[in-house]
């Protein structure tokens, strides 16, 4: 019995910590897809840039990790606005194939730019003392960093939920995701709304990139490609534009992925795809997505 509890704690703690990371990075992608029908495959590149900004602030400059995360969030959010105004806006009204080609091109550019500037080797950071070591839960000890991920992720989830459900801009976003043309007719400036959401989503991705360095085994230039599939899966399973759905999808997939690899190291990594397959057969629009209008 003790052993069962022990393993269950492991799966839950590590799975949820990973799920939080998936959610933080994917949520921006989900909303931009739901809001504008825009397929931003370069979303992972923003996460990667955020990770590099964090690393470079912490290691050579000696800025505290948590502060570096905040700076990365703001810097990449601002960078997102610039990119959106300068580049993305030109392809919004084009067909989806153009979105895909344009953003995958951006991924290639980002990978080569990052390799060129910082080299192909993985980047690591030394965590602050308070985030190192173990936390004794009674049942078993878990790494402090995982606990921190869960708490920080939980706080971000609650803030987002609150923001979307209770604020004016949240209501506007929900309305625009539901029916963009109707929302526009009611005077909601969807263009500007999109800029704000795009910035927020990019910033969140950057935050995820910074938080994930320790969990994903170092930060590499291939990050933008390596995890793209996972982010897209989370968004598809959750339902486009649905924050709650993205959260539950991240939770289900994060836990299943960890459990799969833990129990069946050989082939456990494929569980996540099997689950995605079944869920999408059952609900092609995703767990919380609306059926095709």
């Amino acid at each position, binding site marked *: 019995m003790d052993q069962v509890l*022990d393993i269950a704690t*492991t799966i839950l703690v590590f799975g949820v910590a990973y799920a939080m990371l998936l959610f933080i990075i994917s949520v921006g992608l989900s909303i931009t897809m739901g809001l504008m029908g825009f397929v931003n495959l370069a979303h992972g590149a923003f996460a990667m840039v955020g990770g590099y900004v964090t690393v470079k602030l912490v290691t050579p400059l000696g800025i505290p990790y948590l502060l570096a995360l905040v700076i990365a969030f703001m810097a990449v959010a601002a960078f997102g606005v610039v990119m959106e105004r300068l580049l993305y806006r030109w392809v919004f009204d084009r067909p989806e194939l153009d979105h895909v080609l344009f953003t995958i091109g951006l991924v290639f550019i980002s990978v080569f730019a990052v390799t060129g500037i910082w080299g*192909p080797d993985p980047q690591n950071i030394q965590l602050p003392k308070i985030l190192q*070591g173990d936390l004794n839960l009674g049942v078993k000890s878990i790494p402090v960093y995982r606990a921190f991920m869960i708490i920080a992720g939980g706080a971000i989830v609650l803030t987002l939920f609150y923001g979307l459900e209770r604020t004016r801009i949240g209501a506007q976003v929900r309305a625009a995701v539901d029916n963009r043309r109707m929302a526009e007719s009611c005077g909601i400036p969807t263009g500007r709304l999109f800029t704000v959401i795009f910035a927020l989503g990019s910033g969140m991705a950057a935050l995820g990139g910074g938080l994930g360095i320790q969990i994903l*085994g*170092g930060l590499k230039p*291939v990050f933008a490609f390596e995890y793209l599939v996972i982010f897209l899966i989370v968004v598809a399973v959750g339902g486009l534009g649905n924050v709650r759905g993205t959260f539950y999808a991240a939770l289900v997939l994060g836990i299943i992925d*960890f459990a799969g690899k833990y129990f069946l190291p*050989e082939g456990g*990594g494929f569980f996540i795809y099997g689950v995605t397959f079944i869920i999408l057969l059952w609900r092609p629009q995703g767990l919380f997505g609306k059926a095709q209008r």
Partner: protein
Amino acid sequence: MQKVSTSLILAGTVALAGAAEAREYRVGFIAPKSGGAAQLGEALERGARLYIKLHQKDLGEHTVKLIVRDSKRPGGPFAKAAAQELIAREKVDILGGVVFSPNAMSIAPLATAGKVPFVVMNAGTSWITKLSPNIVRVSFTMWQAGFIMGEHAARALGCKTAISGYTNYPPGKDSAAAFKRGFEGSGGKVIDSIPMGGPRNAPDFTPFFQRVKDKRPNCFFVFVPGGNHAAAASKTYVALNMKAANIKFIGPGDLTHDLQLQSIGPAIAGTTIAVHYHADLRNNANDAYKKAFAVEYGAKAVPDFVSIGGYDGMAAVFAVIKAAKGGNITAEGALKTLKGWTHDSPRGKIMIDPTTRDIVQNIYIANVVNDNGILRHQTIKTIPGVKDKCKELGIGRCGK
């Protein structure tokens, strides 16, 4: 008419005098130059180029041209295409390089068909040398370090149970099998063996390592390719605080690869590895090598076992070129030179076993120690003249 006959005579003279004329020998060199393992390709090439630079004079008027091609990924296709191009179009005299085992395996049939000698400078899966009679390996075999680590873990480290974790491709399986044989032959018990993803991108090792932590073995033997994977795996060991759970971290030298050692952090001190070369080896050849390496590539550049593969590999190539005396290099001639070839390497004396065409060398057991903030490898035991155990015992594909 006059012109034609002159050039004919000239051609004839060149052909006759060929042996005495300065000749450029072309060496095809295949290594990862892009992607996650570019660091390993760079190390291999640095070793090779350093040898050429230091020993060019030994060849007299002949010269060596390294023709480098990118193997891109650990898998076969790109390396194979590169080898094909090097043999057919570039007409190389010798093939060399190769970091990953699947690269070498895909090239082997071409070395046979093209009758080109192929000097493997890193790839360590034991049965690679079985794939072509034209292969000579100067690097190491997974069985050399794995088997010895298994014996050491059971006898000296006092481990009764162990778990092995390995990157799921041929050298990983080889390494885990070698460890099991050595460990269980000395009275230990391997209670679990965990494949940990493929060699291309370093995975998140947490699920695998946490599984090990929960099973509480005395020793945790890990094979991952050097470079990225090594850093990520060692970091995970530290992050999960496995040392506090009394799980000893052991493996072949990739685990605390010199190129990554400092970035892993001081918590990795106490790890034990079995390896054929680490930068802290003390001997005259290594002192000279480290000095030359620093002069050539800067004081911050770290020599590692991959660079030694390139360095000694080029020494083997030079031996073949010297034996050719300005004439053509044939696979038979090259193999004749290299079978039984000995060399005073920075890793100690090495020899090519005349029957297996594989390397015979010292294996060192080393501990990672924290020397005033700098991590170093401290040799605690030297096992001299180690042959490839896999072929000695005729296990699996090594026996065929």
